[in-house]
């Protein structure tokens, strides 16, 4: 049982939660994740990056987007409630060193897993450029946090409602063209975005790390469900990753595999929204009566 200590909404359907997990807080390194499950009998096990940790308080911070049934249920928890199962830290920590100049690109919710990595790269002495993008201003997260650690921050939105009107690949290309060009790029976000970021840096031969969010169950290398093709070989994201050389990843296959349960999930997500709406209605009726 892991108590929720604090919860806040960062953007539409994006939440930040501090969760009591002292052992995980002590061991975790940037790049690692946990698997959370609420209902021990029927709940789904979902992986979430450890966005931050506080060893004094014995807590970890999770930032997640409510995209489906399980993240929806998680979003409904309030401080004082408990998450039944939290396991971690899982995955290999990010390889951090002073590469020289690093550019970190975060798309949407990807800014969350990117943040601890960016922070560590900065601490290791890298000159740090951060690019964050979202569909619109409402969906932008962690802008202030990133500004506080980056030497340079570029913000863009698809619709131009905040910062530059551009996809993140546009400023990324410009950064790659600079002299000296970056020694490292890290791109985390939706799979398509990572695919195009890797495509952007490839001609400039900028080593590019991506963090893959495949479907997982155990997170310990047991089920093989998280597998991806990297450089023609099968790798397990939970134990060999989650970070890989973006130039080697078969993103098309990964995207297809992520869609495995799409039809089933869409139904459920819709159901969740309907249930939530019904409950809200009920509540307001109760309150007004």
């Amino acid at each position, binding site marked *: 049982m892991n108590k929720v200590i604090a919860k806040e909404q960062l953007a539409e359907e994006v939440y930040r939660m501090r969760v009591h997990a002292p*052992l*995980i807080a002590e*061991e975790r390194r940037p790049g690692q994740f946990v698997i959370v*499950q609420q*209902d*021990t*009998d*029927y*709940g*789904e*096990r979902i992986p979430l990056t450890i966005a931050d940790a506080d060893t004094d308080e014995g807590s970890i911070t999770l930032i997640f987007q409510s995209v489906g*049934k*399980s993240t929806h249920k998680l979003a409904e928890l309030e401080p004082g409630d408990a998450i*039944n*199962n*939290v*396991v*971690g*830290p*899982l995955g290999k920590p990010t390889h951090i060193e002073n590469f020289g100049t690093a550019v970190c690109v975060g798309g949407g919710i990807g800014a969350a897993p990117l943040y601890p990595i960016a922070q560590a790269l900065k601490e290791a002495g890298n000159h740090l450029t951060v690019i964050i993008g979202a569909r619109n201003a409402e969906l932008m997260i962690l802008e202030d946090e990133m500004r506080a650690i980056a030497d340079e921050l570029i913000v863009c939105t698809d619709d131009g409602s905040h910062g530059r009107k551009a996809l993140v690949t546009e400023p990324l290309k410009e950064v790659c063209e600079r002299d000296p060009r970056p020694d490292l790029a890290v791109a985390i976000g939706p799979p398509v975005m990572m695919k195009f970021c890797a495509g952007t840096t490839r001609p400039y031969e900028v080593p590019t790390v991506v963090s893959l969010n495949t479907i997982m*169950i*155990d997170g*310990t*290398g*047991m*089920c*093989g*469900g998280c*597998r*991806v*093709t990297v450089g023609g070989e*099968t790798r397990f994201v939970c*134990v060999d990753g989650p970070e890989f050389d973006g130039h080697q990843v*078969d993103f*098309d*296959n990964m995207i*297809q*595999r992520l*869609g*495995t*349960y799409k039809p*089933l*999930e869409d139904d*459920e997500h819709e159901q969740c929204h309907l249930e939530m709406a019904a409950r809200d209605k009920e509540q307001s009726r109760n309150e007004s009566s």
Partner: protein
Amino acid sequence: MSYQPPEKLQQEAERLLKEVNPRASELKPKERMAIPPQTIPEQDPAVRRHNMNEVALGYTEEQARLEAMRCLKCKNAPCIEGCPVRIDIPGFVSAIAEGDDDRAAQILKRNSLLPAVCGRVCPQETQCQEHCTVGKALKDRDQAVAIGKLERFAADREREHNGGAIPGIQPDTGKKVAIIGTGPASITVAADVRREGHAVTMLEAFHKPGGVMIYGIPEFRLPNDIVEAEIEGLRRMGVEIKTNFVVGRTRKLKDLIEKDGYDAVFVGTGAGLPRFMNIEGENLVGVYSANEYLTRSNLMRAYERDRADTPILESKQVAVLGGGNVAMDAARSAFRLGAEEVHLIYRRTEKEMPARVEEVAHAKEEGVEFHVLQNAKRILGDEHGRVKAIECLRYELGEPDDSGRRRPVAIEGSEFTIDVDTVVVAIGNSSNPLISQTTPELKVNRWGNIEVDEDNRSSMDRVYAGGDIVLGAATVILAMGEGRRAAEAINAQLRDEG
């Protein structure tokens, strides 16, 4: 043998028992051998392939008595030789024949901690029953005394009658032992070490304890309730169980000793790393490892589609690759998850199949189509990257290989395809490398199995290991045997240290 309804079996048994009972104590060997072997009542195959309930219903009292009376109580008891943990087989069997089920259970528990599990999943026909005199005399292994089914009977009886009894525990010694994993090897160590009065903590990566017995072996073969009852017994003995704890990640193995002060550690982490075929199309949508397929279904309860949050594909035509227990479990689960056709593809013949004979028979009864001497060459996908067919090659058997089995050789140009929407790869598991990767001091062999001495001591001081992580994918009973040896060594170490 064709399917026989339970009522019929029971009527027959009642009739026979009336005949035999009056002279039960003075039966001659010939008369004992004349008692027909009792068929275990089962769910009708046509019905059970659509439900997760246990297939075998277990002997009725009358059947159990009759079956037990078939035992000749051989002086040399060859059956005991065949049992990895050397259960006093004639002892417990004659207790059943005499109607003393509690004594039968006690005799069983002297050597095996999990008789209800072993009675269900041990490969009896290649262990105790293979050596049984009755089977030999009748020139048919399948007519041996049904030792396993009697074991299950006695264990179930005891659980139902007085499931509450827990073994006596020595006074607190102040020593503590950590046990990693909660499969049969670990359960055995936990019980044996706790009995000596040491504090025991079990650490389990998953959110539920029980190991493969919970997440792998399906409900229709080994109900979770039975495993949970055993785990509950450990809790009542005062064993602490911490789930969601991955040793190697949540805490390093070394830290358990150095920081947390455990006096000894047992590693029972099993063989949980799925092997793949490395063929084209293996990462298409709809290709599962058996581990993933079974975990989704069993641990995550995906078969209760309207309650479980974890999805599983609604497959219609499934191909399962492999011929072991895992493959049978996957194939039979597929029907229960709604498949209409299930193809089991194995590259040798049925004779070489490592699966238990009983489970092969069950799979066939339920309608699994067996393709022997065939193997997958590649998996074909549609334009969305989803499985649509599997291309196979035919094989023939050549010279024996290292394993002593005849080597399957592909017949060139024999390709053919089967239309399927799902493929489950069940060709075996290797040891999970999580602990060895983060513990360089721990010596492993080239397959990643932890190396131990004859007392199951590893190369690291105070660290013991056993079960599949040592043996490679093996069996429940062998894992328990290893656990027993390790526990003895741990208890001896702690006693010596005073």
